[in-house]
């Protein structure tokens, strides 16, 4: 009984929708629901707007006081010193290097994994691996940080004989692993969407399987794979918790084996105890990070749009 009524409801809804304009007034429930949908839709937009406005309002005063050039290109961060310095260039560069490093390591692995899952692996094996990859996506970032701290950090310290293993390298490796799931699943979806005819034509012309994957499937899926990379960039640049545990958090100019501070960790490490201009400067860092992520989202949208059109 219930099963049936559930099945019916979508059709009813369609009917109602088609009559909506004419009879909205006659159906109070309809207009109430419509209002609720409108409000819910508006809430999401409102949050984005409020956050944007709040970040700009609270981020600008410090930039104005410090000076945009000194803030963005200053190489020294000493927020509580007698003569405070608020240069975030080390953090900007660290975030860029760290993200780039994670992409350099994570994308080839993720892409090959996606090719494996989509084309090479027997269906049964792929069905086992796919949930495992999804599980990787579900692990909380603090767990990545913890494992990095217990395993990776001592390993780096002993291998390179440094004072402490917390370093840009450790952060890059952790980030690379963290962005794998999104790269794999988005690339795999893109590869699966490549029309079978392309591959069959390629094989019929005498190309080997491997040639077909790299010369035909991958180029056909390239905007989807690019979207995967941008998604990975977005996740890597926004991550704070995991890398706070393995990066050492000193605002040095980035060096592979020294302790570094990312934009995200720059905020997280100092926010709790900050006050005055220092706190305002942290909001300014947030604003810079927000702009970075906005740019990444715009790029992502461009790729996705091209994917739809092409």
């Amino acid at each position, binding site marked *: 009984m219930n099963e049936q009524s559930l099945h019916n409801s979508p059709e009813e809804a369609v009917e109602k929708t088609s009559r909506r304009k004419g009879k909205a007034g006659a159906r109070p429930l309809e207009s109430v629901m419509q209002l609720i949908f409108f409000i819910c839709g508006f809430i999401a937009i409102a949050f984005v707007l409020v956050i944007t406005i709040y970040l700009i309002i609270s981020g600008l005063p410090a930039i104005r006081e410090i000076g945009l050039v000194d803030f963005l290109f200053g190489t020294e961060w000493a927020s509580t010193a007698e003569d405070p310095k608020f240069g975030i260039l080390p953090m900007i560069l660290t975030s860029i290097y760290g993200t780039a490093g994670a992409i350099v390591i994570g994308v080839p692995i993720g892409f090959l994994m996606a090719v494996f899952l989509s084309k090479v692996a027997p269906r049964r094996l792929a069905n086992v691996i796919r949930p495992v990859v999804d599980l990787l996506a579900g692990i909380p970032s603090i767990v990545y940080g913890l494992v990095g701290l217990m395993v990776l950090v001592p390993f780096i310290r002993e291998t390179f004989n440094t*004072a*402490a293993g917390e370093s840009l390298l450790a952060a890059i490796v952790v980030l690379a692993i963290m962005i794998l799931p999104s790269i794999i699943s988005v690339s795999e979806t893109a590869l699966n969407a490549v029309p079978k005819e392309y591959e069959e034509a390629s094989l019929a012309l005498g190309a080997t399987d491997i040639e077909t994957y790299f010369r035909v499937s991958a180029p056909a899926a390239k905007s989807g794979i690019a979207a995967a990379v941008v998604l990975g960039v977005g996740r890597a640049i926004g991550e704070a918790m995991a890398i706070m545990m393995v990066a050492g958090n000193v605002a040095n100019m980035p060096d592979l084996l020294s302790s570094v501070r990312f934009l995200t960790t720059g905020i997280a490490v100092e926010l709790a105890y900050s006050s005055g201009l220092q706190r305002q400067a942290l909001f300014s860092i947030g604003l810079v990070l927000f702009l970075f992520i906005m740019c990444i989202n715009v790029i992502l949208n461009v790729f996705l749009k091209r994917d739809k059109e092409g």
Partner: protein
Amino acid sequence: MKKMKKLLAAALSLAMLAGLCACGGTTETEAPASEAPVSEAPVSEAPQTDTPETEAPAALSGTVNTDGSTSMADVMAAFQESFGDIQPDVTVNYSGTGSGSGITNVLAGTVDIGLSSRALTDEEKAEGAVENIVALDGVAIVVNPENTVTNLTLEQIAQIYTGEITNWSELGGADAPIAVIGRDAASGTRGAFEEIVGVEDACVYTNEYESTGEVIGSVAGNPNAIGYASLSAVDDSVVAVQVNGVAPSEATVADGTYAIQRPFVMVTVEGTELSEAAQAFLDWAMSADAADEVEAAGCVSPNA
């Protein structure tokens, strides 16, 4: 199938809601005002026959909001519990937001008492902040248990933190680089440490962490590391070194022989009258009655 999915979704969202409620309760610790033990019935029923030295014979009621140093969490927890026995109707709230914001908030009038784990600056005093020292806390210098260096002078510590000494062999230890661990720039412990050792703004840190626990964890996991932490936070996973030949302990902090120590301050504002409940709490915290609680929290009372 659909029905099952619906049920599952409902169950999941219920579970999430329950989780949220549980989380909400832990953000702010409240004094167990109504949990006065039965054995102390005379105290809670007839405050007139209260312990002799308590200044407020009348039972007070109300809320005292305190806000500030996270280092003072243990002291405040002990205060809340004991003051709850003396004045069961007074609720003392504590939120750990950091010394800086505690002082800012009390000056702004959003809380009754601000909590600071460092002495107030002249700037803050000029704004009207008043310093009431309720406890002394030693800052311990901690190393990994594998480290053979167990005694440092204040000068050596300064040299380590400014980067003049970079290898343990220079201090009679193993030939290994020193990992200098510290707190974030806004930390009260870091402020206290750098001021006492005389290395303000001159420290060359290998790693910085945003909590004392992470510093201890990092030192415990790295044989090359040296760090600093509240004496009360030091546990068996690390070794607190002697400073100028004096081991950090409650006794050496109280008599002033241990060099690296800082005050725990309750901040009030000059000219602003506290509520009766808040005044009673402050008076009690400053009295000898509270000394046991201060000691229970691993600190040393200046009022004992």
